[in-house]
């Protein structure tokens, strides 16, 4: 980080690593913390040469003036952020809150489902429903026991919490859809479901609730640039209508979303993404050689 970014930008006040791919950043931005509502997202640029990446707000603390982002290191940018960012560093750009806040209605019993990268973003919604007086059932999916995080945080806002792991090392063995089935079997009076995670998981959730006619809201995170409706890169098919996830969403009715279309559109930059990732790997190898490290930094 150079001197310039020390005086501007948005300071990282805490970092926590949940696993080798998932990490948390808490960033100071008092105005944003004050304005943020459940379901909204921000766009982050980590460096001057960086790309703008949308991240759902996982938590906000109005007293401390901070927002929390939980990030999965999958692409070049998120991996670079994982490698480089530490407490005291500053993000070059942080803008938001973007998108229409989630509608927290008067449902008496709701299901909040988070899988993979969607576990953290579903937390503000679970908390908001709890504050609105609903009976909240949380369903969280992880690959295995070691990757579990925030079960305590969810525990505090959920009346019931169902953990699912792929290998059964803790909680229920299977996908979150198993958890949903179990919850619906136990509570036939669930009025609403919120599901956040990878598109394939949200599709599964929507299919799991469809036969029971439970309203299911999903949060979409397609490719976007500006996040203000200007580029149209984030267009998604909702029924027969095309919407822009950044300003018309990001929450949509899961029973209407064309997930196949979304998944295809998420592949848009696969070749360039691969190239960037390979370049990054090479760069990392260069850094691990002591002589080259001096030149690289």
């Amino acid at each position, binding site marked *: 980080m150079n001197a310039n970014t020390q005086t501007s930008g948005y300071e990282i006040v805490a970092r926590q690593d949940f696993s080798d791919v998932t990490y948390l950043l808490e960033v100071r931005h008092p*105005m*944003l913390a004050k*304005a943020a509502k459940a379901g*909204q997202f921000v766009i982050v*640029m980590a460096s001057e*040469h*960086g*790309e*703008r990446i949308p991240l759902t707000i996982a938590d906000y603390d109005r007293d401390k003036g901070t927002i929390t982002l939980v990030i999965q290191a999958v692409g*070049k*940018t998120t991996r670079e952020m994982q490698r480089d960012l530490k407490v005291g560093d500053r993000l*070059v*750009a*942080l*803008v*938001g*809150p*973007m998108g*229409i806040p989630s509608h927290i209605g008067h449902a008496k019993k709701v299901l909040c489902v988070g899988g993979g990268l969607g576990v953290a973003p579903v937390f503000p919604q679970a908390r908001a429903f709890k504050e609105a007086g609903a009976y909240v059932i949380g369903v969280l999916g992880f690959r295995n026991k070691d990757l579990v995080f925030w079960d305590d945080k969810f525990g505090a806002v959920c009346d019931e919490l169902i953990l699912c792991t792929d290998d059964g090392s803790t909680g229920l063995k299977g996908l979150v859809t198993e958890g949903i089935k179990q919850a619906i079997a136990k509570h036939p009076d669930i009025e609403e479901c919120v599901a956040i995670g990878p598109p394939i998981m949200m599709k599964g959730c929507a299919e799991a609730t469809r036969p029971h006619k439970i309203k299911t809201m999903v949060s979409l995170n397609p490719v976007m*640039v*500006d*996040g*203000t*409706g*200007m*580029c*149209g*890169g984030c*267009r998604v*098919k909702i029924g027969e209508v*095309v919407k*822009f996830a950044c*300003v*018309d969403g990001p929450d949509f009715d899961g029973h209407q979303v064309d997930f196949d*279309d979304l998944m*295809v*559109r998420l*592949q*848009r*930059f696969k*070749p*360039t*993404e691969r*190239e*960037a990732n390979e*370049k990054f790997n090479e760069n990392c190898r260069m850094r691990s050689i002591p002589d080259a490290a001096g030149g690289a930094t």
Partner: protein
Amino acid sequence: METANGPRKKKKTIRMIPQARTPALEQDPQERARNFKEVNCGYRVEDAQLEAERCLMCPDQPCVRGCPVNIAIPDFIQKITDRDYRGAYDVITASNLLPSVCGRVCPQESQCEGVCTVGESLEPVAIGRLERWVGDLAIKEGWSNIPYIEPSGFRVGIVGSGPAGMACAADMAKAGCEVTVYEAFHEPGGVLKYGIPDFRLPNSIVDEEIGKLRQLGVRFECNTLVGRLFTIEQMIEEMGFHAVFIGTGAGYPSFSGIPGENLNGVLSANELLTRCNLMHARDFPSYDTPLQPGRHVAVIGAGNTAMDALRVCLRLGAETVSCLYRRSRTEAPARVEEVHHAEEEGVQFHWLVSPVELLGDEQKNVRAVRCVRMVLGEPDESGRRRPVPEPGSEFEIETDMVVYAIGTNANPIIGQTSKLKLNKRGYIATDESLATSIPGVFAGGDIVTGAATVIQAMGAGRRAACSMKAFLGLRDTDSVYQERPGGAAASLFGIDRAEHGYARVRLPR
């Protein structure tokens, strides 16, 4: 050499002036089609002198009326002839703070140059090129016109840092207001930065012009999404702004709704241009933002944005770049120079062609555009002849990238987050003075009119500033003060009652 004040030479006639328009140096089409350096290298001093000679100094001055910000065009041209270049700059900047930008991007042929008297018999005076030359010289010489500004005590908030916001900011800062401009992107400049490519308007020029606004005391706050981070109402009620101008641009690209638009490789011109210009995708991977390269690109539309998209694709290395437009060349809304440049660089124009379907391969990448040929029918409400499809004329164009440049719709964010009245198309409703339904809040540019040009947006920014000054009770220095009709009733101790800026009490809420 005579000066402006000295005795003039006898009246110029059309026969006395250089007959041909002075050409500007341009990069060779073959070479420039592969780089992002400026196409038009601008005038040299001798070119500017020669071209300035071509102005007849006609008493009628239609060019001034043709200019949306009414630059005193003959006056600055006279200053060039007098070799008083600083004086020429002073004349321009009295009306327009951004000569380097406007000289490059204004559609002069439909404004000042379109009504030039010389143009009745010869090619009109190259006013745009002269303006640009003066502006660029000012940047080179480090000139700026920063007047002494008496603080007025008012705070003005401006939403959007594009041409409308910049023009309004300049005028309000000169009126002594403390001006803050909010921008959602990480850099100020709006469409001048993300939209117009460097080969037409280098971003360094935009930064220079923004630097001048900063010298006037204007503050720029980037990474701020007004509406969501705070609302327009909060700006007035809580944040202490006495007046607000909204110039957020149209910003919601249109698609035409034909089948196949969600295929990969189909994108808006806004997305293409933003990735390439603002986010530097052309320098991937040294910049992180990607842009899938198109080998055979089809751009739908024939406005300035379409021309920019076409020429950007050429420079990114496309083998063929085609423009599909449903009307003919005469109706194309782009600047004449841009169509001409695009043609020189090898863009293929398909006039009277309308896409009906985008076809994809198994991976859902676009592979072709199915088009239908059009014929021009009766004139429609815009006065242009309406294109109608010719039955049985369908054909396909092979492509791996389709770019939509057919205009924009109203951006919904301000409407979603405030009580501002919108018109039925979703744009902000204003009266003639550009005042909105909330007192103290003004709006102008594309968010009021729908997509238009840079200079029209700047004109709107200036008109809004004028109304804002009246609202704040600041005397507009541009107009000669006249006592209001109504005599004593309209004045209080001899002070115009409309001019309420002399005392202002803010009551605690």
